[in-house]
């Protein structure tokens, strides 16, 4: 399990492994629990590090597929050192056709990233609180569970939530999805937002 200090240590070694293996530098965009911890939004632990996108040389977001072999090898070597699960670093959020990067990330997300450079071979970009609200809302509808807790803990404003809802509805245009959104908003005490969407 990662807290902020362990995450830092692990990513530091990941850079070292990329460097030793003479891998191409990578620029990761990270969402999920790791981003919440690293940006100080929430104090908790997480099992893994979710990569939602890469940044290319021009600073443009691209889906993290295919998963580079260099990165997989370095992640595997890092896992061995810290006794982590094999998939501790993964592209689960954007792995396939219905992935977040494939369907479209919140507008302007790349302008709000929090960057940490771990040497010449690894740059890590954590998504901002506003984008966390977007993604957590979507995950809360899609999967519920701790995503609902995380969303509530972020204490979004009504404006932020409305923005997130409008984005989420571009990923799922069905009426059933809208109903689920309204129901969640009501439960979380955002009844007025629920009325507007």
């Amino acid at each position, binding site marked *: 399990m990662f807290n902020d200090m362990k995450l830092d*240590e692990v990513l*530091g*070694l990941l850079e*070292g*492994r990329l*460097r*030793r293996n003479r891998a191409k530098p990578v620029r990761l965009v990270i969402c999920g629990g790791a981003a919440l911890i690293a940006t100080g939004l929430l104090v908790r632990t997480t099992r893994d590090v979710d990569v939602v996108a890469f940044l290319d040389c021009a600073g443009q977001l691209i889906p993290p597929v295919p998963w580079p072999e260099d990165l997989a090898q370095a992640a595997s*070597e*890092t896992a*061995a*050192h810290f*006794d982590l699960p094999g998939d501790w670093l993964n592209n689960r959020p954007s792995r396939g056709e219905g992935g977040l990067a494939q369907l479209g990330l919140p507008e302007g997300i790349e302008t709000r990233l929090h960057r940490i450079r771990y040497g010449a071979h690894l740059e890590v970009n954590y998504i901002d609180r506003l984008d966390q609200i977007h993604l957590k809302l979507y995950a809360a509808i899609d999967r519920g569970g701790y995503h609902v807790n995380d969303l509530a803990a972020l204490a979004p404003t009504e404006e932020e939530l409305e923005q997130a809802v409008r984005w989420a509805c571009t990923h799922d245009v069905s009426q059933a999805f809208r109903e689920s959104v309204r129901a969640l908003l009501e439960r979380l005490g955002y009844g007025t937002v629920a009325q507007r969407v």
Partner: protein
Amino acid sequence: MEQSLSAFRRVFRESLAQFLWRSWSALGVAGHERGTFRGALDPEALLAFTCSVGRMDARLFDEMLDWLAVNGRFMNVQRLRNVMRSFQFRGGPVLSAVAAWLAGKGKNLKWKQLADSWPAVTPPESLFLLEDDRPLPVVSECDPVFQRHGFLRNPIARRGLSLPFRSSEPVCLILRLRALFGVSARCEIMHYLLTHPAAHAHAIARETCYFQKTIHDTLNELACSGLLVSVRNGRQRLYRFRDNALPEALIGRNEQAEWLHWPTLLAAAERVWWTTAEIAAAELEPALEASEIALLLEPIRRQFLEADWLSQKRLFDPRDGISALWGFASLFDEVTRQD
């Protein structure tokens, strides 16, 4: 134990140097305390190892050349090539130079074939190394044979003190078998059967670095002598000596020959030696250094876990960083010394 890589390498260097001197002295090199070992030395694995790690000791290296000039006819060059390639020993170009030197002395055509097996090193580099791994400078003229293979060293001046191997010593068993049976797979087969109750061709081939067909065909021939018998064991045939007469004649009534797979052990020691030099030179941060050590030792540990001859030994944990290296060095010392 000290937790620095340089401290480890200092001690491990001494351990390897001692091992090399004890080994070659046991085979007949003059001027050093003869070692005692748990089993017979594998001359090809030892030569492969010395062509790499032996570069740390110019005197030892030249004593090896002297020994080869006297006893080289009992070396199995084909097996040497197999051992070098199968276990990825690094000293190929050095071995080519050694072979070229032996061929130049008129010592058997087989060395000439080996002399071209590995390309010359470019740019040329010093053959020998100082204690701190820097190249040993060559101030006078260079030996032309080694120079052609990319290695700079002083001209070779043999002391001529090496003796024929001591045939009565258990450590020289393989050489003794070669003197008796000729340089061929028969010797390795006999050695394997002297150290195991019974065996099938596949296991013998794998452990002795021969092709399975060679071992299979040779076992069939040996069985025709009546001194070896075989029994069917599933789809394989298990071979053993018919009785104790031949083993006792070869190794004595009360002797117990022990099996030790020298290529596995020495190839691992070579990897540890050279890779720790590379890691030390890279001056890595502690976590990365520990990670490199783990990557070095993990495959070695997996190999050792499969080795029956190490089953009673405590193995190191690759994730222990420099402590794991000390663990490897202790294991090496323990295995290479007489119990």
